């Protein structure tokens, strides 16, 4: 009589979608997860994102060239975390104007809990003047007047950092919300996930079975291919095309 009770209780499938197996009902011991220790993290005095000016305090007199180099290729600054634990990583190049800044600031400040979280900008205020000609005029007549200012962002740069007594799961939601609205592809990352991403890239580069790599062909200029490639491709190794970052390439 007792042997039959020793086996765990099973429930038969009732819904039509269920497969033919029986579901085992087990009530186990609750696993109490030890909460994380945030002792070494301090919240600064002004935890929320600062207001970003539309126009720099000393507006530029000289109209600047388009200079798309500031979008092209991988970023050299703000590629690693400094203060916070989580952030938004740019996966493509682009320009952020004041509207983007306001959107980011309002969304993040709305979702931040100032007692336990803080956020920090990792991009400068708009500095690059963009000119626009007045509507309806023909070509010519000189360069247009300065219309607005933008910040150039290259691929691999952190836009902002969030930190505090919080976990990635809590923060990820609004960071992805913001990342989707940016003019370039972006994603929410934590210190750990960024590290993992870089290691995965490295792993792919190492175990690539293709004997022909872009780098190899371009450095040895096989088939005179450099005639159709740019000098920048030597450094970018086929992973970047203009402002775009080609993720699948190795």
């Amino acid at each position, binding site marked *: 009589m*007792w*042997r039959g*009770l*020793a086996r765990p209780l099973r429930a038969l499938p009732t819904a039509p979608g269920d497969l033919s197996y029986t579901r085992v009902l087990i009530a*186990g*011991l609750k*696993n*109490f997860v030890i909460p994380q220790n945030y002792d070494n993290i301090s919240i600064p005095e002004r935890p929320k994102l600062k207001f970003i000016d539309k126009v720099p305090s000393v507006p530029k007199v000289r109209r600047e060239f388009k200079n798309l180099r500031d979008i092209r290729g991988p970023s050299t600054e703000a590629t690693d975390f400094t203060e916070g634990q989580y952030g938004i990583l740019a996966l493509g190049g682009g320009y952020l104007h004041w509207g983007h800044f306001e959107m980011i600031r309002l969304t993040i400040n709305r979702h931040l809990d100032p007692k336990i979280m803080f956020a920090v900008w990792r991009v400068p205020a708009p500095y690059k003047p963009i000119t626009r000609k007045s509507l309806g005029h023909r070509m010519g007549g000189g360069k247009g007047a300065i219309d607005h200012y933008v910040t150039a962002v290259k691929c691999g740069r952190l836009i902002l950092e969030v930190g505090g007594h919080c976990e990635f799961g809590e923060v990820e939601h609004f960071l992805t919300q913001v990342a989707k609205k940016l003019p370039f592809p972006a994603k929410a990352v934590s210190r750990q996930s960024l590290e993992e991403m870089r290691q995965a890239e490295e792993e*792919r580069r190492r*175990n*690539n*079975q*293709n004997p*022909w*790599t*872009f780098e190899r*062909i371009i450095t040895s200029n096989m088939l005179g*291919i450099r005639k*159709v*490639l740019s000098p920048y491709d030597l450094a970018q190794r*086929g992973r970047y*095309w203009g402002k775009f970052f080609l993720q*699948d*390439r*190795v």
Partner: protein
Amino acid sequence: MHFERQKLMAVTEYVAPKPAIPAVCSTPRVHAKKEENGYAKLLHRQVAEAFQDSKMIAVCQHCFTPSDEMLMMQHRLRKHNIHVKFFPNEIVRPYLSTSKYKNLLPLFVARNLMIMSPEIKVKEMLRMLKRVPQISLLGACIDDTILSSQGVVSYSKLPSLEVTQGQVVGTLSLTTSQTCALLQHGAGHLSALLDQYVKQQSGGTGEPDGQAGEGQAEPGPAFLAPFINHALHIETDGRKRVQGQVSSEVGGDSWEGPVSCLNQQTGS
């Protein structure tokens, strides 16, 4: 993109490694061992301690009881140093399977509780359990003996240790007392008869010799009956039982009288 560049991009694409035997086939399916959390380890230790410290372990089925009734029951049991313990089955079962209480495994199946005590107080426990009908006794392990619920009830009805010890001593000393009685029986009987004869002789000097002779001829039962009755009324239960056994063995109420007289004399 220039067509040559397109071709270059197509040629230099990533090619993933493809082993001859896929990793799925070569690596064995090993379930990652879940690290036991601290609470489970603590419970294991507590279970081990509880089982080692207690002599009486009763397992009961634990249906829903109102909390105040449960609390009162625990309080009453605690006064007799009986503790009510709750452990999850998944902690207790591995411990039992490796210890000497293996045969208690079938009891730890559904919702249950354990009643443990370093002393053995079965009567009190049963009394308390009777007051709470929702908790029913499944089985117990008292002094390394596994008992069912009926076994526990009959265990509680056993006499106390002193009484049983007295019984054992009495049974053992039965033969020796018998021997003593048997050896003294003949002489005692004779002396009693002679006493009677002397009394008759002294008391019945006026009576004819024939009567005395008759009295002599029939010494035994007629004169000894009042002595027998007297003895039976005075003696304690223990002695009486012994006497009864003696008489049953020897086979005659007549022997009771002189023996009881002798014992009375020795007692006084």
